[in-house]
């Protein structure tokens, strides 16, 4: 019984530490999703094969929401002639890098961990995008 009480106390402590931060993140995401229309994303790509992947990665890192949204936007970007390289970086960073949820991650998991993980994911998203496009070319699916 004492052990259950201790576990409950630890859980309540975790709840008290995490819930305000999570609520703050949800508020930030809601405001961003409402303020930035989906049509905005297609207007910021330049058509430059070197700059666009970086833009895709950056926008994906800042954007937030359900990954389905990123697939729909990604599909539209492909139709508009944005490179698959840029779209892949965008899709990956959308789910792996979280600028909006960074305050929560730093608060709950530690500043060093959160910053390091997000920077590494940003770079890895870029590399995976290159590898994916190269591999598609090799298997003749580009």
């Amino acid at each position, binding site marked *: 019984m004492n052990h259950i009480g201790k576990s409950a106390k630890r859980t309540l402590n975790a709840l008290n530490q*995490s819930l305000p931060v999570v609520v703050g993140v949800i508020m930030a995401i809601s405001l961003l999703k409402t303020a930035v229309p989906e049509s905005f994303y297609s207007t910021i790509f330049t058509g430059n094969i070197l700059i666009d992947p970086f833009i895709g990665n950056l926008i994906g890192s800042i954007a937030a929401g359900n990954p389905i949204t990123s697939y729909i936007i990604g599909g539209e970007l492909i139709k508009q002639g944005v490179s698959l390289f840029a779209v892949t970086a965008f899709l990956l960073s959308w789910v792996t890098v979280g600028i909006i949820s960074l305050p929560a991650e730093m608060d709950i998991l530690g500043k060093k961990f959160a910053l390091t993980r997000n920077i590494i994911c940003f770079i890895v998203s870029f590399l995976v995008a290159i590898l994916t496009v190269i591999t598609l070319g090799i298997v003749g699916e580009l």
Partner: protein
Amino acid sequence: MRQYYFVVFMIAIYLVVYFTSPALFHESMLENYSIFLRVIPILALVFVFIFLFNLFLKPDKIKKHLGKEAGMKGWVFSIVAGILSTGPIYIWYPLLSDLKEKGMRTSFMSTFLYNRSVKLPLLPIMIYYFRFIYTLILTVYIILTSVIAGYLTELIVDDESKSN
């Protein structure tokens, strides 16, 4: 007290939006309501997990399966758990924090979070937009690089922790 800074900051922003753009405020509040409705059940589940882990899992067990001596089993568990976990990424921070306290490796935390980009229920939608072969290649690369991302995170974070 520090955990309230961000939410207080967001409330201040919402107050500014309320007076400068009431329509945006109203739409944002509706979006908040919609997200909260989706998130609350998952968040409740996460805290049930935390309670049960505190009740039944001793730190030595965590260290054995998710600590330094876990080996390949730890990597596989992190990848599979990351792929299977649902809901927004920030919902899982409290549980990871709890597991970290009990001895979970930094690399496994990072690998778990990276593998959340593989969404099994959404794969058919991804295939519809980007074709099967693209989805397959991307998914394989995500899983493989999640190990590299996890390893690098641990290398930098734990090294800095030691030097501080």
